């Protein structure tokens, strides 16, 4: 793998060659992302990015799509809290042609008036689809309420109200400000050599406007919730409760990152973890149960999830909070620590088995502004840890007394038991309010 910050001005470039298939994957991350949407204009980054993909250079949207499909290629836009990503897949014999199209999207999007208006009409339909999906709905509400005011609580999709604040000129200005060479992380993987990679990087960046990498300005860290609170998102005819339980935690890349990886694995990151054993194996209350510290550039959530039968939703929340409190106070046993460390060290080869995986991990680390190879080196850090290190990390970073509980379920059946589950004051909201 080669990783470089580029010259004084230029993108960060990551190349992972592998010639076992005639395919090339590329990920172009534009640092920033939805957490930089202005307050009240949530959804702006997503809107600008999707609009850029809908016609570029001399091609309107239909011709761009037709040309890409005819090459057997894919070129997709996605938006996370930390970056906008232009991701592509091409047969290597068509790579140059596909890269030309990607370069058009970066440097010369058309930002058509028609497509702008169409996209504004389309996005509320995506909100509808989320409301129809209990798991996605639980995540949307949890993100919003976990730490009010935190940049990651801001929906990348937007709200019915914020979408009305998005205009075309602001979208164009955002793209021109953020799509500059210094602000890009370019990852290439697959059937490509260094010389071809250098040509690709030149083609992708040579037409971009000159300009400094935009200063990433984010609002404050939000206001962590004190004390427990429960939000019941009322939806009719549910047979289960989609549950999210958690709180604001720390940044991926903090000194305790390796210790928290073990903490996460012991509590809810493996089939043998405590949550899975207590909730699924012993009681059969949910098909799955787990937890994760969300990986992002800024401090993000520690989050527990499950989908418990509606008849056991209250007991499931109560038991989970008890397990969480016990775990935060005591951490893993020595045996659990040894087991989880063995699991995590042994699992690393699966995360870096293919050129594409290695490239994607390196791009992610670069977006998070971590040292090159940070994630790939975690096994070395894991080897240095003691069980006591992990217990200390649990006490420092897990806060069960300040947990926010979101339950998407039917209030008529679940409100009483959930109110008695030890999750603090319970508020009922309608599922289509947000």
């Amino acid at each position, binding site marked *: 793998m080669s990783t470089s910050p580029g010259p004084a001005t230029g993108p960060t470039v990551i190349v992972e060659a592998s010639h076992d298939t005639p395919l090339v994957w590329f990920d172009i991350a534009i640092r920033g992302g939805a957490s930089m949407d202005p307050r009240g204009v949530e959804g702006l980054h997503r809107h600008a990015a999707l609009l850029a993909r809908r016609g570029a250079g001399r091609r309107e949207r*239909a011709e761009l799509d037709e040309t890409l499909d005819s090459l*057997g290629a894919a070129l997709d836009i996605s938006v996370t809290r930390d970056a906008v990503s232009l991701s592509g897949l091409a047969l290597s014999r068509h790579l140059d042609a596909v890269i030309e199209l990607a370069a058009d999207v970066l440097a010369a999007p058309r930002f058509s008036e028609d497509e702008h208006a169409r996209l504004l009409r389309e996005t509320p339909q995506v909100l509808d689809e989320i409301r129809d999906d209990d798991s996605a709905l639980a995540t949307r509400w949890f993100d919003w309420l976990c730490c009010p005011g935190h940049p990651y609580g801001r929906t990348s999709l937007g709200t019915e109200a914020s979408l009305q604040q998005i205009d075309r000129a602001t979208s164009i200005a955002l793209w021109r400000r953020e799509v500059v060479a210094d602000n890009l992380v370019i990852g290439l993987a697959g059937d490509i050599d260094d010389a071809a990679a250098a040509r690709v990087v030149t083609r992708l960046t040579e037409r971009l406007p000159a300009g400094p990498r935009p200063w990433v300005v984010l609002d404050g860290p939000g206001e962590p919730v004190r004390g427990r609170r429960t939000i019941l998102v009322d939806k009719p005819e549910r*047979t289960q409760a989609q549950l999210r339980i958690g709180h604001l935690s720390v940044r991926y890349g903090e000194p305790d990152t390796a210790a928290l990886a073990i903490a996460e694995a012991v509590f809810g990151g493996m089939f*043998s973890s405590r949550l899975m054993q207590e909730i699924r194996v012993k009681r059969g209350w949910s098909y799955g149960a787990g937890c994760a510290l969300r990986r992002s550039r800024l401090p993000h959530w520690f989050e527990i999830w499950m989908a418990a039968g509606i008849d056991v939703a209250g007991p499931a929340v109560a038991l989970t909070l008890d397990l969480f409190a016990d775990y935060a106070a005591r951490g893993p046993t020595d045996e659990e620590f040894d087991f989880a460390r063995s*699991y995590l060290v042994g699992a690393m080869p699966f995360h870096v*088995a293919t050129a594409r995986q290695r490239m994607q991990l390196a791009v992610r680390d670069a977006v998070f502004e971590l040292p090159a190879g940070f994630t790939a080196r975690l096994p070395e850090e894991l080897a240095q840890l003691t069980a006591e290190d992990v217990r200390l990390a649990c006490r420092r970073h897990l806060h069960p007394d300040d947990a926010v509980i979101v339950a998407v379920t039917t209030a008529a059946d679940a409100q009483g038991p959930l109110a008695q589950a030890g999750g603090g004051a319970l508020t009922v909201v309608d599922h289509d309010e947000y």
Partner: protein
Amino acid sequence: MTMSWRLEAEAPAGRGTTARRYRLANGLGLITALDRRAPIVALQTWFRVGSRHERPGATGMAHLFEHLMFGQTENLPPGEFDRLVERTGGESNAATWVDWTYYRLSLPARDLALGIRLESERMQHLVLETGPVESERDVVTNERRERVEDDVDGWLDEQLMAHAFTVHPYRWPTIGWMEDIRALALPDIRAFYRTWYAPNNATIVCVGDFEEPALLELIESHYGGIPPAQLPAIDTVAEPEQTRERVVRAPKPIATDRLLVGYKAPGQDEPDWAVLEIVSTLLAGCPSARLYRRLVIEHEAASSVDAQLTPFRDPSLLRLAVTAARGHSADELLAVIDRELAAMAEHPPSAAEVEKAKALAETDFWTQLADVDGKAEALGHHEIALGDFRKVNTLAERLAAVTADDVARVVRTYLVPARRTVVIAEPEAPDDGEDEA
């Protein structure tokens, strides 16, 4: 190669890789493919048993085993299977569908022997007692609630299969009907295990970093002594030809109409399946696809459209799934679909349009072979569902041979209202406002 193995077939499985099929005297199949890019292996055990091998009243049995097989065995206490795998850093999982069930281990290469020991143990010595069966029954009912009862897409899918097929076992859901899951009896569960979990009903697929002679020896030592089972004759009832449209509607707590249409199509091994795969791509398999362009972009009548041709051994379905945009109805979407299909039937697509679908198919072909798990799955599916792993390659050749006239012909033949089943979920009517008084 040790003397007990018979080499039956070999074929390319991607650039520089050869897949080989061996067989032991007891009928156990083994497909190998070396891939030394990383020190890992994909070890998958495929059984020729899926929901099609169940009977009415006992549906969900094959899927229940996907859970039970991780439980206690005569030589492993409860939970030990998962602990042994996870301690290595590996992962285990399983999948069940209409034609097969397979068990997947992703292991560090150095732990391949452990994986083979574990798989041979649970093929022979699974302990099926009341306690663990009841526990997994609860888990499966919750899985069903999550994927069907509380998921409109799961409900649509289940209704489509239930109405598209009238006599064929594809008509019941792989996860099983809820009342059947609750009623599956322990003696029947034990009988199912004894019947289908046998070496002559299984093929092991191993892709990754290993030494083939050592692998053959290892598998022979763990499986060679297992006797074959007397497998029941497969007596699948042929689905009669569908001659009229079937329509199912129901209100659901959703925002807009959902439409799922299934056109009766031939099995994956039939010549026209490949043509329909190209049709599926042309309709809704890419951003420039006809239905996507028409429904989502031009008419703005839908927020999403998706096409899938199911890879079944027996008659399949070409499925079109559409979510209506606000203010538009499923009936309106269906009318647009009909117009688009009529146009494609009357006027064959241009050669360039067909070439586009082929280019996308070529990318898909290589993508499925890009990692060891995907390669093992592709080999396993074609071996078990279609009888020969080499059909991974011949399917690619079949797709490459499709012509524009083929496309028009199969649209005229298969994608007609009389051969389809339509399932529509509609938003429930607003309540009567009794809480607002």
